[in-house]
């Protein structure tokens, strides 16, 4: 890909992930966005487009953000060309990359803002009890006909995946628990993490069973947060921004299904399309697996972290559990992975999980990751677009140098 059509991240900002009932989603949005614009070192007149990820269960905020509220907040009226929302769950950020590429190829100004904000703690104030109950149905709510009558929610849906994955591969409960342990070790060094406590395999297995084989410490908790990224072309980034991070290669997975029982390969233990996505991203970036310094892959639940390692070719099928349990993905391990603690330990950003994954990638590549910095990190492989119903996994290879 030419540098004029390749993307670069020239600004990034985030707020802590946690439970902040006094923080409105709109307040978080404007504060994080100003931080990102300043981080990029651009003038507000140079913003060509703003793409927003939908906040969870916040109709008023969604309406304002998807229209042009931010144009007013930032005084962009005479400059900005596009504002809008792109909704594809956690995978929406991949479509935002596509929209951003369209802007850098055809429009001026060529700086694009990607923004996510959400206030989960504010849901009880916004919704009546019956609507909260509806929200709690989570992924089943669209399938009021065929799924919700059976009492499934997002935890039990992933429990179905985890059970079959263990059945197929012989992965043990201890190995799965070790994923949560690895994530929590990283989160202890992440000042923005909601769950920065020390956790052992025993702690995980002793926590409440939510849906067998998943324990409470293996289930992500939706949290409040906001993240903003400023993108432009790699060509422009070379001469601007403090420390640009380049998107050296991208690979698109497949959107395989909406409902779990419609998954076309009839195999819950595999992620079709991910291995091809990694191959094409590596090829485009001109690098090999062994060149990768850090993996920043959103998983949300332990089973997806293991499946990602296997499908991406870093572990043989069925061996990722032992690989993680041996400490390879933990701080000091040979393949640092999910250095922010992933959704499980950092706190779950809803449709903004990819934003957190990319933000963490930027920190690592700039050398700004503090105590959890992977020394000399030059290349990050990121699974940045992923959805909890695991219908899609898209990857990007990010680098501090344009090769």
């Amino acid at each position, binding site marked *: 890909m030419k540098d004029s059509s390749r993307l670069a991240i020239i600004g990034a900002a985030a707020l802590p992930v946690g439970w902040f009932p006094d923080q409105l989603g709109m307040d978080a949005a404007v504060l994080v966005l100003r931080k990102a614009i300043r981080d990029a070192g651009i003038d507000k007149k140079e913003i060509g487009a703003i793409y927003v990820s939908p906040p969870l269960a916040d109709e008023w905020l969604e309406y304002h953000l998807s229209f042009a509220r931010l144009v007013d907040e930032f005084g962009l009226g005479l400059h900005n060309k596009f504002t809008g929302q792109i909704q594809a769950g956690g995978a929406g950020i991949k479509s935002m990359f596509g929209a951003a590429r369209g802007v850098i190829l055809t429009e001026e100004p060529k700086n694009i803002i990607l923004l996510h904000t959400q206030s989960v703690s504010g849901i009880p104030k916004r919704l009546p009890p019956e609507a909260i109950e509806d929200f709690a149905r989570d992924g089943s709510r669209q399938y009021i006909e065929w799924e919700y009558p*059976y009492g499934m929610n997002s935890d*039990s849906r992933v429990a179905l995946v985890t059970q079959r994955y263990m*059945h197929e591969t012989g992965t043990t409960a201890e190995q799965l628990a070790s994923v949560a342990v690895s994530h929590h070790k990283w989160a202890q060094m992440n000042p923005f993490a909601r769950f920065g406590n020390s956790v052992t395999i025993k702690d995980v297995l002793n926590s409440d069973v939510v849906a067998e084989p*998943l324990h*409470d410490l293996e289930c992500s908790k939706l949290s409040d947060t906001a993240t903003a990224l400023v993108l432009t072309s790699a060509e422009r980034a070379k001469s601007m921004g403090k420390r640009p991070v380049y998107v050296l290669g991208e690979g698109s997975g497949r959107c395989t299904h909406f*409902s779990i029982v419609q998954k076309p390969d009839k195999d819950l233990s595999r992620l079709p399309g991910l291995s091809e996505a990694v191959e094409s991203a590596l090829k485009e970036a001109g690098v090999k697996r062994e060149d990768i310094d850090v993996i920043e892959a959103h998983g949300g639940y332990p089973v997806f972290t293991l499946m990602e390692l296997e499908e991406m070719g870093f572990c043989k099928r069925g061996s990722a559990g032992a690989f993680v349990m041996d400490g390879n993905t933990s701080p000091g391990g040979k393949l640092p992975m999910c250095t922010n603690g992933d959704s499980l330990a950092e706190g779950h950003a809803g449709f903004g999980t990819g934003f957190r994954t990319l933000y963490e990638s930027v920190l690592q590549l700039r050398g700004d990751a503090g105590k959890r910095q992977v020394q000399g990190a030059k290349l990050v492989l990121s699974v940045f677009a992923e959805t909890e119903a695991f219908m899609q996994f898209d990857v990007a290879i990010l680098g501090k140098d344009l090769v």
Partner: protein
Amino acid sequence: MAEYKKPLPQITPLSEPFYKAAREHKLLIQKCKDCSKYVFYPKHFCPHCLSDNLEWVQSSGKGKVYSYTVCRSNVPANFAADLPYSVAIVELDEGVWMLTNIVDCNVDDVKCDMPVEVAFEDITDTIALPKFKPRAA
């Protein structure tokens, strides 16, 4: 019949034949007359070949547990009284997957690949939900 507090299936013109048969404890699925593939959930046209030529056929009602979980906490409110309960994906002999509950057995006895057969639960006077129970292989 005692008041049923859990969510009722939303019955639409498309799914009406399915629920009408369910009341008689018959499990219907769709089959494409053009490409011969079975279809579930009910659809307006065949998702494989996009043909309109779908017909309702009676399923054997037999299949096996593809995967399962036992819900033990943190479930939608009206399901709390049922804890623990089993949510499963059953692969029917015809090949399609159904999300369901495994009933008429101890939840701890459910296993992957376990043979099961349909067991209808009359949840109201007019609606029956297909669930599955263990069967001899």
